């Protein structure tokens, strides 16, 4: 039976030129990057300033995934606990990325870290203790990283939306303060809006699971010989974990964020 690479080679251009998996993979990455850069250039003509951010993000993403691929190849032979420093490093990095989206909030890094630990940290720990994530580095790292990465996206969306709401509703918030409301009450509608908006992608992923998209982990499990039914169930479990961790981290943010956007004298720090 011919290998997948051999099958591709018969009819597709890149496969005819590149004859090793590494060469083909790099060529595929280059083509996808070029199309993304092209889109960024087109978007910049419509006013979206992405022409610098996108190439850097692509390069960074590629270097990181290659590095983690090499690291995984080494670590996957190690004991399960080596996942702990690896996942901790991912959480620290994720907090740093979230913080860049919410720099206007004083102490944004500590806030992001606390929220990610409450969300991804708690979910990964509890799910491992319950046996839902096998205490095996081959499961802990890929599943844990998915939870952390999606949690990071949810957290970024939350803080970004919250900041936007603060800036566009400064007048309403200060009117509420002037009427004797507490800071928590004054920003409550905007926290709710941020909470709702940040979870939309996770909810939509759950809704469309299996209909609009068949996620990678499911395809991977089927390819590696798991039963398709168990693979499907496990994909549902992973999305459930992502939703739970995202929800928990946003919940934590609704408690922590208002304290950081007001002074001790209940004055709004962030204005339009």
């Amino acid at each position, binding site marked *: 039976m011919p290998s997948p690479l051999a099958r591709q080679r018969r009819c597709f251009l890149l496969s005819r030129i590149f004859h090793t998996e590494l060469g083909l993979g790099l060529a595929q990455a280059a083509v996808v990057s070029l199309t993304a850069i092209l889109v960024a250039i087109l978007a910049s003509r419509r006013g979206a300033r992405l022409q610098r951010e996108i190439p850097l993000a692509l390069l960074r993403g590629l270097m990181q995934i290659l590095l983690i691929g090499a690291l995984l190849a080494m670590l996957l032979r190690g004991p399960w606990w080596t996942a702990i420093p690896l996942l901790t490093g991912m959480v620290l990095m994720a907090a740093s990325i979230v913080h860049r989206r919410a720099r206007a909030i004083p102490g944004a890094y500590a806030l992001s870290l606390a929220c990610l630990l409450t969300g991804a940290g708690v979910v990964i720990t509890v799910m491992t203790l319950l046996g839902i994530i096998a205490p095996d580095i081959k499961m802990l790292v890929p599943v844990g990283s998915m939870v952390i990465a999606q949690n990071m996206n949810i957290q970024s969306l939350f803080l970004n939306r919250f900041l936007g709401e603060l800036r566009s509703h400064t*007048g*309403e918030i*200060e*009117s*509420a*303060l*002037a*009427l*004797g*409301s*507490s800071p928590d*009450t004054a920003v409550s509608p905007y926290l709710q809006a941020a909470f709702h908006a940040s979870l939309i992608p996770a909810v939509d992923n759950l809704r469309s699971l299996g209909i609009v998209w068949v996620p990678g982990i499911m395809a991977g499990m089927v390819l590696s010989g798991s039963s398709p039914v168990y693979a499907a169930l496990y994909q549902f479990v992973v999305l459930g974990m992502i939703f739970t961790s995202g929800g928990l981290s946003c919940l934590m943010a609704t408690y922590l964020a208002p304290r950081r956007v007001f*002074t001790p*004298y*209940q*004055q*709004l720090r962030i204005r339009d």
Partner: protein
Amino acid sequence: MNTRVLECDRLTRTVSVGGVGRSLVQEITFPLERGQVLAILGPSGSGKTTLLRMLDRLDEPTSGTVLLDGKDYRLTPPQALRRHVGMVMQRAYLFPGTVADNIRYGPMQRGIYLEDAKVEALLAQVGLSGLAPRDVATLSGGEAQRAATARALANDPEVLLLDEPTSALDDLSKQSVEQFLSSVVHARHLTCIWVTHDRAQARRVADVVLLLEAGHAVAFGTAKEVLPA
């Protein structure tokens, strides 16, 4: 009997712009008696709104303070202070919902639910009788500003701060809102600070006038003294 309700004592606010200190308001001092209307007058950027915001402690003074009934206002928790000192902003900034929801907002923060009759009485004072169930999205600019005033009055404040309350309105609404604000302030015997850049308005509404220029007080006295006809 001491009738001095509010006293500004060398109130100063400096902010850092690009690492350099910029003075917005410098050493402002004035007394205000119970029931008096003070107009703060000055061109754009003279520090009028900054001064008013400091009086409600929405901005923090860098130095100096405000005495309310002889007591340093920093000793009063901000929420309690802001119930005592009401503020109506340049724009109405009504919350989504009905007019009645907005009127009830302030007292609700203390766990007090205003009965329909009280809401109606407040609306009658600002000329909005019968509009309690109206969605605020359907109000005109002048009606919204009246509703915002009724919302501030619902807290029963002793001092009312008005930040250019007519500047965002058309000429017709401006005149009627100015008249109703003046009548409400006098009817309730409120001590009032009214920020405006309109000299004629200041002359019409104020007992005393504070003239600001580039953050400094350049004149303080009765309207007749500071703004001779």
